[in-house]
């Protein structure tokens, strides 16, 4: 009888342990209504198979491709939903809340919560840590005319993720440096050029 006790215990506890393990994959709503209203929408679903396939088509000699290859090496999934609208407040707060509510699950920690009065943009960054290793990242960005959700799954190296800055034509912010914007004026993205006198 005793020899059956351990396997039975494992069989009973297995599903419970699996359920208890943190799951960094968010259930991404399809937002069919938003996709119709949006002037531009981005829906990206990259599972491990597609990520590894993409990795094979990234050129190691190209700096951008090499950086991307390095970033996606430990990832198991990238899911993006982004909608851009022609008018303000085309999306409801409940659309965001459907995703945000999942981030109250155990394992998720809010890393950054920002609100810009100037751009009226809110960006929340959540991270899931398991055994001192970041295993998931969720980003919710809501702007008056744009709404973006990003969910990255896998062994995320925050240093590598930080290297995303300056890539893809996005200006590098030099966060860790002591330079202030006053010392080195930086042109605002999307701002109009100064009028010619």
């Amino acid at each position, binding site marked *: 009888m005793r020899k059956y006790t351990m396997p039975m215990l494992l069989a009973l506890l297995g599903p419970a342990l699996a359920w208890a393990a943190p799951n960094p994959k968010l259930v991404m709503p399809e937002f069919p209504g938003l996709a119709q209203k949006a002037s531009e929408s*981005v829906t*990206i679903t*990259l599972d491990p198979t*597609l*990520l590894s*396939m*993409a990795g*094979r*088509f*990234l050129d190691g000699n190209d700096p*951008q491709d090499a950086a*991307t290859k390095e*970033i*996606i090496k430990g990832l198991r999934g*990238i899911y*993006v939903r*982004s909608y851009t609208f022609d008018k303000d407040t085309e999306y409801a707060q409940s659309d965001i809340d459907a995703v945000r509510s999942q981030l109250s699950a155990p394992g998720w920690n809010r890393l*950054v919560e*920002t*609100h*810009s009065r100037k*751009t009226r*943009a809110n*960006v929340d*960054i959540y991270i899931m840590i398991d055994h001192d290793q970041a295993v998931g990242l969720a*980003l919710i*960005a809501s702007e008056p005319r744009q709404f*973006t959700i*990003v969910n*990255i799954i896998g062994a995320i190296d925050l240093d590598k*993720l930080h290297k*995303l*800055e300056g*890539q*893809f*034509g*996005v*200006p590098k*912010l030099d*966060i860790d440096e002591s330079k*202030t*914007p006053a010392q080195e004026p930086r042109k605002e993205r999307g701002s109009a050029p100064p009028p010619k006198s």
Partner: protein
Amino acid sequence: MNQDIESGMRSALRPVAPSDEFSRKLLARVAADPQARPKSYGLMPRSARPLAWWLATSLAACLVLAVGIERHLEQQRLQQSGLEARREVLQALRVTSQKLNLAFEAVKSQSTSLADEKPGL
């Protein structure tokens, strides 16, 4: 008397080799009449064999070509999917990067404004 009859019959029924003329005529008739020729034991007549060979070769060539085209198309499909996946990865990271920068920009501007306020305190 019986012996005479027997020897007479033996001499009358002795094996006689056919004449050369008979053999020649027989072979000539066989050559002229196709039905008289011995039947082929193969699946098809001898005359159809080159055609069958060509058909088999063409069929094999078609099969090889079809497999080759299928593999080429499969390769193309794979390449297309790979390039599409690559494009999606780059786009996903671009979006992530933009939003991370938005957050970092907000954090930075907040810390800058705090630093600006400090000397005045």
